[in-house]
């Protein structure tokens, strides 16, 4: 029973913290802090969330429209981009890590310099530079590589996913390199090497498994950073996603519902993954 109760109590705590975070706009009245208004807003929000079908947002021309189910189209759009970028950055970092460890020294230096370069450039730079690149290519040759903004008929995926995954890929790469170097110094991999196992085999079979826990622990921080970048990206590409939906009518209720919609899938995913890791490696992960 405890394997249901424990995650559930954790989820309740997450909901409470999201209420606290979602009401933050009510705390700031200009530059002054208004704590009674904050507490009021939390109480009011709690009552509002009990009747989600009555929630409204400000549509075009100031009309009040019900939040459900209108929020789901932007929500799923944002989440598709977000999950795709998350997976892409993870895979790219994984490939880069294996390449770094297995390539000859000269190529390795080039690779690490490229990663350093892409890490130090701000992601806004990437987004705008890629947009300019696509436009210039289209003007010169008439070849439209990919769409650079959302229009009425079609949603765009390729460019946003690419832009969103650059920075997280660098961070994943760093975490992986740090952990792998630590694992390579441990007794078991030295024993494996002394017995004549190849580096590739040690990496793929023995070390890769132990990488999962640090990655899982740190991916929460990476998600936190990616969510901030998602806001900027939706603005720059004109995407009507979840964060632009929240930004259009930033009431505590809509903000909190947005946070819940973002957080719950990740919570479920992390809970599932920690169960799996517990099952396969016998190590406990605190998430």
């Amino acid at each position, binding site marked *: 029973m405890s394997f249901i109760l424990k995650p559930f109590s954790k989820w309740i705590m997450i909901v409470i913290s999201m209420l606290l975070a979602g009401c*933050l706009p009510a705390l700031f009245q*200009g530059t002054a802090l208004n704590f009674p208004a904050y507490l009021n807003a939390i109480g009011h929000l709690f009552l509002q969330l009990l009747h989600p079908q009555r929630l409204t947002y400000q549509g075009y021309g100031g009309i009040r429209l019900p939040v459900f189910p209108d929020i789901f189209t932007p929500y799923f759009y944002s989440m598709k981009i977000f999950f795709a970028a998350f997976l892409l950055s993870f895979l790219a970092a994984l490939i880069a890590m294996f390449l770094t460890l297995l390539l000859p020294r000269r190529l390795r230096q080039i690779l690490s310099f490229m990663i350093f370069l892409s890490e*130090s450039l701000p992601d806004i730079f990437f987004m705008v530079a890629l947009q300019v690149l696509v436009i210039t290519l289209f003007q010169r040759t008439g070849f439209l590589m990919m769409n650079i903004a959302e229009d009425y008929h079609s949603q765009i995926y390729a460019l946003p996913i690419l832009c969103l995954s650059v920075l997280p890929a660098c961070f994943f790469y760093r975490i992986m390199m740090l952990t792998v170097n630590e694992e390579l110094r441990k007794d078991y991999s030295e024993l494996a090497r002394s017995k004549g196992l190849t580096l590739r085999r040690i990496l793929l079979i023995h070390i890769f498994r132990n990488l999962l826990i640090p990655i899982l622990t740190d991916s929460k921080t990476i998600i*936190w950073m990616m969510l901030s970048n998602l806001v900027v990206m939706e603005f720059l590409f004109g995407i009507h996603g979840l964060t632009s939906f929240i*930004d259009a009518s930033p009431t505590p209720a809509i903000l909190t519902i947005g946070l819940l919609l973002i*957080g719950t899938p990740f919570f479920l995913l992390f809970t599932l993954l920690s169960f799996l890791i517990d099952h396969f490696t016998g190590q406990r992960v605190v998430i």
Partner: protein
Amino acid sequence: MVKRLYRQPLFMIGFLFLFSLVIGSVLYRLIAHNYLPTKLFLYKGGHVIAHSPLSPLQAPPLGTENRGYSLGIMMLIGAKYTLGLTLLITFIRMGLSSLFGTLYGLYFYRYRRSVNGLSEGFHYAPFTLLAVVILTPVLSSDKFTEVFRYTSSEREIAEILVLALLAVPVVSAQVGNIIGEISRRAANPIHSPMSGRDLSVIIGKPI
């Protein structure tokens, strides 16, 4: 440690770039008093051949924007504010978070389930969005009269504090978790599934 940093070429490239940008920005203020050159039209033989926005080739170094102001000089003037604010925000954020995180990791680590649960909501809150929602009423001017509600120093302080403090819950929980895990491992070394790694690379990154 400083000596080892000197020998890192990648570190020196980045550091010298940012440092020269700040120094150049300050010097430009002292020498040229933030003079902002404008070039609205490009003349050739008495005729207008192009108008702003001009490309970097027509108006070096970086071209002009649509009101004719030189973009390169605008960036040089603004660099000291942007980089200075980034440094200041990072210092406040990391200082407070290290303080709270150390306290939590050393003395309150047994309540880690509650602390992690309660900081979780901030993890899934888009940081930029919260900052925009909170700061828009403070920083924006009136739509019709273009009068600001707050003085410029009030606006700057509010911006610095909000951007620094919004990240404190998440970062202190991270710092505290690392410290708590390390000190627990030091107390009984047999249970050491986790390893305390240098996470400053991630959480120190200003957003």
